């Protein structure tokens, strides 16, 4: 949006934006009470976006571009990664920022295209429910994950990463 709005520079030069001051307040899109939330959301999109570029590029590089790439991804690979608190924190931050960034983007799109109040309400209810479920589920998975699974006899299972051998025995 900012890319096409070249008129935005005019007020800074002392020229008022078109029709400013001549519109009945009831037709104005901006609502003073929701102003600060939208401002916080706008800043959040830029701050989280910049962080996500780093978080996701490193995530993609370390999982797909080094070692055996896509073929190395299995239970033991995930277990090996989450044995390191740095990767736990990395994935947790990525989960929260990406979900909130994506949810706010979807909220913007719903506001833009769903014209009926009831449609907007329904779509946003579904969106926020899905977001809550995914964030809570993902957070629990990262923190309750058990990498060194043993069978009933107490022996380490085949899927366990190699570092488990020193932990169990």
């Amino acid at each position, binding site marked *: 949006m900012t890319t096409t709005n070249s008129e935005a520079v005019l007020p800074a030069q002392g020229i008022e934006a078109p029709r400013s001051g001549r519109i009945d307040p009831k037709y104005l899109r901006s609502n003073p009470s929701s102003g600060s939330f939208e401002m916080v959301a706008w800043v959040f999109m830029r701050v989280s976006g910049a962080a996500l570029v780093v978080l996701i590029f490193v995530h993609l590089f370390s999982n797909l571009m080094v070692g055996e*790439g896509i073929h190395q991804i299995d239970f033991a690979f995930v277990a090996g990664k989450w044995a390191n608190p740095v990767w736990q924190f990395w994935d947790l931050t990525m989960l929260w920022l990406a979900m909130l960034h994506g949810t706010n983007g979807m909220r913007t799109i719903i506001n833009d295209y769903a014209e009926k109040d009831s449609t907007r309400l329904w779509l946003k209810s579904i969106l926020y429910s899905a977001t809550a479920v995914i964030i809570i589920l993902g957070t629990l998975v990262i923190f309750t994950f058990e990498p060194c699974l043993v069978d009933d006899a107490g022996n380490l299972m085949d899927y366990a990463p190699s570092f488990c051998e020193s932990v169990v025995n």
Partner: protein
Amino acid sequence: MWSWVGHRITGVGIFFFLLVHVLDTSLVRVSPEAYDAVIGAYKHPIMIMGEIGLVGAIVFHAFNGLRIILVDFWKQGTRYHRQMLWAVMILWFVTMVAFSIRHLMIFFEGWEGF
């Protein structure tokens, strides 16, 4: 205008993949067998092409997003927004050539056939 449309479409696509990706990763809490079976689907040739498409969407959204940040916060941002869009497209192309070659080479090296 088209960069704005592209940003929206890639954003929505990435969002839905993210929902699926958290769900498939959550299978590590179900059982190693369940996780390995589902993640195995990502190693199918069709999914390899899908991954290149997904990374293409992510890389465009990332670079164009950085351009939006520069337009908003950099003094000369609005003046150079068009040049920056060219930079986004060139960087996207270079990144995607590198990613696609590496991803396909790794895929063919370890591929055991259908």
